[in-house]
């Protein structure tokens, strides 16, 4: 991957004020990446997705000249603090930053808090993560102080638009929720462009003891976008994570989610809704690591797949030896709307403790003909009946979004998506 190496060298030259330690971090991460290259179908855990398209386009890192005029209308979620990033560039003057929250650029964060960076390069098995560390050129550190309750959600909008040639961004978000804090963060990717682009995101989220964090991730990139992400959550004692991952965008999407329940009493709910059409390929791999006792985890992922799209769900729950009294539930459900849509589901449980309560389940199906007939026999037309059933399918997981404004936003997206969707089964 010639263009990546070129960009790394340019980046290192351009940011010549970067501390040596950071430059070393970049170089060593790149070296790790180069040893293995991009994943191919022979790799365990990556076999359902073809990443070779990423190498067919010569992406370059977003530069200063890539900031277009700011679009007049941007996706908005009501009653939020907003952090706006356009084509990788943080728009501080257009952002409404919440009080009691520290928002720093990566350079600034590195200068003041370098250890949070080093912690991000622990997972060497994911080449995209290493690539992000080598090329990180965008992103922010967001630190919510101890005992802080942030009422309105922090909406990070990462928007890509007005491109003239293919660009890539390797954003790194470092989010720390302080002890006894309570926050809602929306990490939102969207775009509108006729040119291809590639996002390779790493989000590292730490929940300190007793912190409550609601994290909504919305991935609705333009269909010219490819979106790769590695999202890692680490939970302290009695911390509580409520995460919702909505994905409807990009032609190629791969997200690795890792939840580390690293102290006793932590609980995580990680749910998601994926909707895909045309040739979209949406792939999510989730690992829940039960490392300590008395933790619980819940997962509910739903996929609605139309046209020739594909959805991949690979969920692993690993219960370590010492993690007694673990309660882990994992459910995935796929709804296929055409006979060409494909769902790959692979729920896995690995249990090394004996006093645990774990369950998993996976179903793949089509719209229930009986239910369609029932509605039609009451005067409801076929199309409306289908759409009601599809929304009904999504509802179970949508109901887990506790913030009304976020729920409304995603619900509107789903409704608009359904308007043009093909159902042939």
């Amino acid at each position, binding site marked *: 991957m010639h263009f990546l190496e070129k960009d790394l060298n340019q980046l290192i030259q351009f940011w010549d004020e970067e501390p040596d330690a950071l430059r070393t971090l970049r170089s060593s991460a790149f070296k790790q990446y180069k040893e293995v290259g991009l994943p191919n179908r022979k790799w365990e855990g990556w076999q359902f997705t073809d990443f070779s398209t990423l190498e067919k386009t010569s992406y370059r890192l977003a530069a200063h000249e890539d900031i277009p005029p700011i679009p007049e209308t941007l996706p908005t979620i009501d009653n939020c603090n907003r952090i706006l990033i356009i084509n990788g560039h943080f728009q501080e003057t257009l952002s409404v930053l919440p009080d009691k929250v520290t928002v720093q650029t990566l350079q600034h964060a590195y200068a003041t808090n370098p250890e949070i960076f080093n912690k991000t390069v622990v997972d060497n098995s994911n080449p995209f993560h290493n690539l992000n560390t080598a090329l990180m050129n965008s992103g922010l550190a967001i630190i919510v102080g101890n005992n802080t309750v942030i009422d309105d959600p922090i909406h990070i909008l990462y928007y890509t638009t007005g491109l003239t040639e293919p660009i890539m961004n390797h954003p790194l978000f470092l989010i720390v929720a302080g002890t006894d804090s309570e926050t809602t963060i929306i990490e939102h990717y969207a775009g509108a462009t006729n040119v291809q682009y590639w996002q390779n995101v790493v989000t590292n989220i730490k929940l300190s003891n007793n912190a409550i964090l609601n994290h909504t991730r919305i991935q609705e990139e333009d269909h010219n976008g490819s979106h790769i992400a590695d999202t890692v959550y680490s939970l302290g004692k009695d911390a509580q994570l409520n995460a919702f991952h909505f994905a409807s965008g990009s032609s190629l999407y791969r997200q690795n989610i890792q939840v580390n329940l690293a102290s006793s009493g932590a609980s995580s709910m990680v749910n998601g809704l994926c909707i895909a059409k045309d040739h979209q390929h949406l792939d999510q791999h989730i690992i829940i690591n039960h490392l300590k006792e008395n933790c619980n985890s819940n997962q509910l992922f739903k996929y609605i797949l139309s046209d020739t799209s594909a959805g991949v769900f690979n969920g692993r729950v690993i219960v370590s030896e010492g993690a007694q009294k673990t309660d882990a539930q994992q459910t995935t459900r796929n709804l296929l709307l055409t006979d060409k849509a494909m769902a790959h589901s692979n729920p896995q449980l690995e249990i090394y403790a004996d006093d645990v309560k774990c369950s998993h389940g996976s179903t793949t199906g089509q719209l229930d003909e009986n239910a369609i007939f029932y509605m039609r026999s009451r005067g409801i*037309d076929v199309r409306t009946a289908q759409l009601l*059933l599809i929304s009904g399918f999504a509802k179970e997981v949508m109901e887990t979004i506790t913030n009304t404004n976020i729920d409304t936003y995603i619900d509107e997206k789903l409704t608009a998506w359904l308007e043009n969707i093909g159902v042939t089964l």
Partner: protein
Amino acid sequence: MLEIKDLHVKVDGDKEILKGINLTVHPGELHAIMGRNGSGKSTLANVIAGRESYQITSGDIFFNSSSILNQSPEERALAGIFMSFQYPVIIPGVNNTYFLKAALNAIRKHQGKTELDAVEFLKLIRKKLTAVEMDEKYLHRAVNDGFSGGEKKRNEILQMLTLEPALAILDETDSGLDIDALKIVAEGVNNYRRDDRAIVIITHYQRILKYLKADYVHVLINGKIAKSGGENLAEQLEEKGYSWLDN
């Protein structure tokens, strides 16, 4: 209102289930169709409602003098045909109120009436709920989700009372009901009767006919109406059993 002429119906391509049904139902009448399991009772109800998994090999069904064989289930519903399901379907995630309102407004729109808004609908539905002694909490649930057998059947009657069809076909609405629920359902049906409405009730047992006065009773055996008569036919059946009519 309903006229069925020499109706032959197959399922799965080969098995003939209905072998020449003739039936005429006039406005104001209540017909009971009785028969054993597998005699074709439910097939008849489903074919009238327009379920697509059956093949009609010959014969015709007329509703208000027009053939309905080429009409979709929703077209038939809009025209005024209603079937209460033997096994009401659970529709996860679809709110009961929303569903009923969508159905009623589809019918009202077809009739050239203004659609009801949420407030108007709620006012209407509350009255209908009282008639079938259903709690308002059922409105907030998904359609038939978590309903007991009896509640599902009452929900069917609630739908009938709300949608006000000209022809209601009640497919084993009485089965699985305890005596109290049976009375409620029967009373709902009785109150629904009117000179311009017809009801066809399909049942195994005579017991619901103690509460409903049938004008005609038909016995379906092996895909054909083996005998038709008045109320007393049901009593005779109860006494002698279906084998009385076997050849």
